[in-house]
């Protein structure tokens, strides 16, 4: 079936990516990141960033309000847990559906403008959702205390078959509880599906159309394409990805708070994408992993760990180095993050993927270009 076919190169990339994701518990061990909670976050934020990149990387529209869809996905999933069943699939499907609808409305309005005006429109919508979730929509969102499971939830479908157990239930998939490693593997499988779909989008004529919008929207319209439906489709797809990621956050921890929708969360996904490499498939995933790693590992360092780490340095220098470097970890890990961004943007504007490409080009410099290979230059 053509729907599930990839070009040979894409199939290879997919196989490698699947290998990397499935073996994550192994290769994260040396970095001290092999606990399930963090690996779940790796998988979830990779989905978020991949989806964001479908909009930003392909069409060039910089949305500053994508966290709203993440939040909507989380709320929908928790409500599905509360009202219907603790099974993860209905929660994911509903979350994707609702966040897609939400994205359709916001995208329809925001895509009337381009450039920074589009960014501000999406930012405004997201901030409105955030502020409303905190104030007026409290019956739906439970405001500051976050939406949580309670012992009195109706859970109509579950309770039709089983009786209510003691304590709060956990999310499950066909009866298998999703927590710890099983939760991670569930997220990992969803990530692989999401990655596969993104590959299909990148390789499809639709993906070409979106790239056309990025490089020259006016020329696209002159050739007879109405670009807005394409951009809107990309917006809705990336909104659905965000909703999916939000639902997975709720699956791994059934709790949904409004702070997930704040503009800082929207900014975070922009940074992940740019740090990794805009418009590449793998880049956003790497960006998401790096940022989540910094956030979790660097913020947990303290002076004791640093002191042991710098043990090899002689005593007088040792204390100074520990004192200085302790400013960059723990509470101050964001300082490291900020510096990292400045450095990456100054020296490596295409993100980490450009660095990889540059290193690759160093090795390939020796080989002469193939005979008959013509570099196609677009006419300006």
């Amino acid at each position, binding site marked *: 079936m053509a729907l599930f076919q990839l070009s040979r190169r894409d199939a290879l990339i997919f196989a490698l990516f699947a290998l990397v994701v499935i073996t994550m518990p192994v290769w994260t061990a040396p970095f001290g990141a092999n606990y399930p909670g963090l690996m779940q976050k790796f998988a979830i934020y990779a989905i978020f960033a991949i989806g964001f990149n479908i909009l930003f990387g392909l069409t060039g529209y910089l949305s500053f309000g994508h966290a709203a869809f993440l939040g909507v996905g989380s709320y929908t999933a928790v409500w599905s847990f509360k009202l219907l069943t603790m099974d993860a699939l209905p929660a994911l499907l509903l979350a994707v559906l609702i966040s897609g609808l939400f994205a359709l409305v916001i995208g329809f309005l925001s895509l009337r403008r*381009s450039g920074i*005006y589009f960014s501000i429109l999406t930012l405004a919508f997201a901030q409105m959702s955030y502020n409303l979730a905190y104030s007026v929509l409290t019956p739906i969102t439970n405001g500051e205390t976050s939406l949580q499971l309670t012992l009195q939830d109706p859970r109509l479908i579950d309770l039709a078959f089983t009786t209510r157990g003691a304590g709060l239930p956990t999310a499950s998939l066909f009866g298998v509880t999703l927590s710890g490693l099983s939760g991670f593997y569930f997220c990992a499988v969803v990530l692989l599906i999401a990655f596969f779909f993104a590959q299909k989008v990148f390789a499809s004529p639709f993906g070409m159309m979106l790239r056309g919008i990025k490089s020259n929207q006016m020329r696209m319209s002159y050739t007879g394409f109405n670009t807005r439906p394409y951009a809107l489709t990309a917006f809705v797809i990336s909104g659905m990805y965000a909703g999916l990621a939000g639902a997975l956050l709720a699956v791994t921890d059934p709790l949904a708070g409004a702070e997930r929708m704040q503009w800082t969360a929207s900014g975070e996904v922009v940074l992940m994408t740019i740090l990794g490499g805009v418009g590449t498939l793998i880049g956003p995933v790497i960006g998401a992993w790096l940022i989540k790693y910094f956030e979790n590992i660097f913020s947990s360092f303290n002076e004791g760990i640093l002191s042991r780490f710098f043990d090899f340095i002689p005593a007088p220098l040792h204390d100074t180095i520990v004192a200085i470097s302790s400013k960059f970890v723990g509470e101050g890990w964001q300082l490291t993050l900020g510096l990292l961004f400045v450095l990456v*943007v*100054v020296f490596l504007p295409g993100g980490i993927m450009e660095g990889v490409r540059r290193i690759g080009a160093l090795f390939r410099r020796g080989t002469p270009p193939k005979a008959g290979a013509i570099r196609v230059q677009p006419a300006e």
Partner: protein
Amino acid sequence: MDAILAQLLNGLDKGGAYALIALGLTLVFGTLGVVNFAHGALFMLGAFCAVSFRYLITLETVTVDPTQTTAWGTALEVRTPLAQTWFGDWGGVLIDWSVPLSILLAIPVMLVIGIVMERGLIKHFYKRPHAEQILVTFGLAIVLQEIVKAIFGPNPISQAMPTALRGAADVGALIGLAPGALTYPLWRLVYFLFSAGVIAAVFGFLRFTTFGMVVRAGMADRETVGLLGINIDRRFTIMFGLAAVVAGLAGVMYTPLLPPNYHQGMDFLVLSFVVVVVGGMGSLPGAVAAGFLLGILQSFASMNQIKSLLPGIDQIIIYLTAVVILLVRPRGLFGRRGMMEN
């Protein structure tokens, strides 16, 4: 009627802060073409100039006075602020007026910070895409914010306003209402007048000085001005410093209204960007008008009558206005065609 006037006044001080930050953002954007996400951090640095100034001026000498004893029987420690030793009775006055006096510290400090920032980092980003400018200045904002957090700690540091300006002004009496019908905190009035003064000074500087004329010419056509043998880059650098000073002054004077904390820059930045875009990218009068407009709208939306009519409106009014204006007037209130649209 009184209630409406009161809300109008309430919006003015916040509107003044928005207008000042947005004015600086627009100056930077209009001259250098850079989208500066670190501008909110400059506002925050200004506020911490006031904190530092108060810290410096209240440095104390501790002497032990053996003739007096405390309730515990130990010798009494007498703390004298250095300001008092140097200036005598004037020292107390100086401490009392420390917030407005911090302006004297803030102007040179912010000017230097702005120029260093422009020469050190931002000048490398003129020709780069806006997305990269946003990212690098955002990173810079995080760095500045974290440095301030490391020095001053994570908690807000409240700053007292001068005692003379603590009360409320009977504004109603001035316009013929019954005395006491319409009062307004004095400091907010001061803030509004101050921001109006700074705005007038910036406009006057651009309009009536040769330097300002050259800068305006450079905003219109940078290359031609350069061809005429004028070092436009240096002037634009100074304009960046000036924008930093404007943001810093807005921060200094805002400290009595909002105790400075390290993340206030980010909070104001998002709103200021909305203000700039509503006003129209690159339009200085637009930034000022939109700043006051949104400040006043926000204070109207927090009236109880309106809140009961439209619950939650006070939370979203600014963003709602931004959405409506952008959908109805594509380039904001005063924007020009083709500015930042791709």
